[in-house]
Structure formats: structure tokens, C-alpha cells
């Protein structure tokens, strides 16, 4: 009986399954901690419009709340089946983006160096309500 080989085989199984699942979510969690990370979901106004979640863990419809003076990493995730766009004219977005394709995630960074409320909106025709797909970033 090969006790050690059996142990290795079982270890590999656990590696392939449990460890993979845990690692995947752990890596993602770690990546999101390095900046002030905000998850922004792009949805057309027919499906709820923009909605964001920052460190407070609360979903804010059509609003993004970020702290003043921090570098913000925005994960813009398009969970729909059409393209959306994103523009935030009052800040410098890095990298400059135009289209977020269906199912895609686009990451933009910017420095929240102004206090106040600033508009953002979708820049790609996505639905009949496209003109109303907008929100506000609040820096405080």
C-alpha cells in the first residue's frame, strides 16, 4: 500500500478543487484592497441604471461615494448583453476608456482630488433610455 502516494493524490485533489476556489476569491479580494476600490455595475435604465458599492459594502443606486485624496480604482462591470460606455469629465481617467463590452470588466483609475458631486454617464447607445443612464460621483 502506497500511503504517501495516496496522500499526494488526495492533496492534489484538494489543490485542484477547494484550494482553487479559495485562491480565486482571495486573489480578487487582495487586488481590490490596494486602492479605494469601487465596483460599478453598468445596467441600462430599463434594468436599474448604474449601481455602485465601495468599502461600506452597501449598494448605492446611481451614486458613487469615494473619500477625498485617495486613488480610486473603479471596476466597471457590464453584466448586460449590450455595450455601455463611461465618461467622468471632471477627472482624468487612466486609462481613457470608451466602450465596455457585454460581459466585460474595465478598470479605470483616477485621483479623487476635488471635493463635491460630479456627473458620470454612459457614452454608448445601449437602449431607448440611454440618455438617462447617468449618475453622480460624490467625493467627501
Amino acid at each position: 500500500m502506497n500511503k504517501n502516494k495516496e496522500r499526494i493524490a488526495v492533496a492534489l485533489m484538494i489543490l485542484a478543487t477547494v484550494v482553487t476556489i479559495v485562491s480565486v476569491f482571495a486573489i480578487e479580494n487582495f487586488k481590490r484592497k490596494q486602492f479605494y476600490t469601487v465596483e460599478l455595475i453598468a445596467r441600462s435604465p430599463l434594468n436599474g441604471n448604474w449601481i455602485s458599492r465601495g468599502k461600506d459594502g452597501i449598494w448605492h443606486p446611481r451614486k458613487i461615494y469615494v473619500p477625498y485624496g485617495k486613488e480610486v480604482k473603479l471596476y466597471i462591470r457590464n453584466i448586460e448583453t449590450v455595450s455601455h460606455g463611461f465618461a467622468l469629465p471632471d477627472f482624468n481617467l487612466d486609462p481613457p476608456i470608451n466602450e465596455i463590452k457585454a460581459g466585460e470588466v474595465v478598470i479605470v483609475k483616477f485621483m479623487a482630488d476635488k471635493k463635491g458631486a460630479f456627473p458620470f454617464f454612459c457614452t454608448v447607445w445601449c437602449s431607448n433610455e440611454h440618455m438617462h443612464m447617468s449618475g453622480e460621483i460624490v467625493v467627501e
Partner: protein
Amino acid sequence: MSAPSKIIKICFLLSTFYFLFSFWNSFAQSEKFFEIRAKKFSYTPNIIRVNKGDLVRIRLISEDVHHGFFLDGYGIRTSAHPGQEGSLKFVADKPGRFTFRCSVTCGEFHPYMVGYMIVGPNSRFWMYGGIVLGIGVIAFLTTFLCKKQNVQG
């Protein structure tokens, strides 16, 4: 040989002649313009026919969201937003049936949003059709002409 076999042999030969005859039909070259409307998840018209050598112009109009248009074999593409058209102009110098596909993710069935452009004569099809028919005929003949069979038919 028996009557059914004779009939079949004649049918095969007639079909082969028909294929060859169609192949030789040629058409005059001209300019063709198509206004293609794209809507999830198909194009209208969905099949366009041109002749080899035609100068083809395509105006792509989107009826709902951002759609694309990529033409197999020619490798050219364009796209259209609603209210902003796309256009293509090219010479259809390659004969055959080519698929044009949506090149901008427009919805869940995006990978299946296709149309066909047929540049006639579809020599690729006639060639393979002729080969298959020819093999069939040869198989038929060798069945009855050879004593011992080891090859196809």
C-alpha cells in the same frame, strides 16, 4: 445490367451534366448596392447575391444597438450605431459563399448573428459537388465492372 441500375446510372449522368452546365453560366459584372439593416440577431437582407467582379457597396444600418459587420474571406469590417451608419465598398473578386458576421458584441446571441454573401458562380460549391458526384459515379461503375472489390465501391 438490371433496369433499376440503368435508371440510376442515367440519373447520375444527367445530374453531373446539370452541375457542369450551371458552372459555365456567367453573368455580366456591375455595381451593386445593398442597404443592410442589423437588428438583434439577424440582418435584413440576410442573403445577398453578387457576381464575381462586381463592385459592391454596403450601407449598414443598426435598428437597435451597436452592431458590426465582418466579411469572411475578404476580411473587411464596419459597424453601425443606431443613427450612425457604417459602409463598405469592395470588389467581389473571390467567388463562393461567404458568411458575414456581427463583429460587436450586441447581445447573448451575438456569435450566431450571421448573413451570407454569395458571389456567383459559386465555383467552390460546384467543384466539390462535382467531385462528390464524380466519386459516386465512379463507385457505381467500379462496383459492376471490377471482379474483385477492394477500393471504394
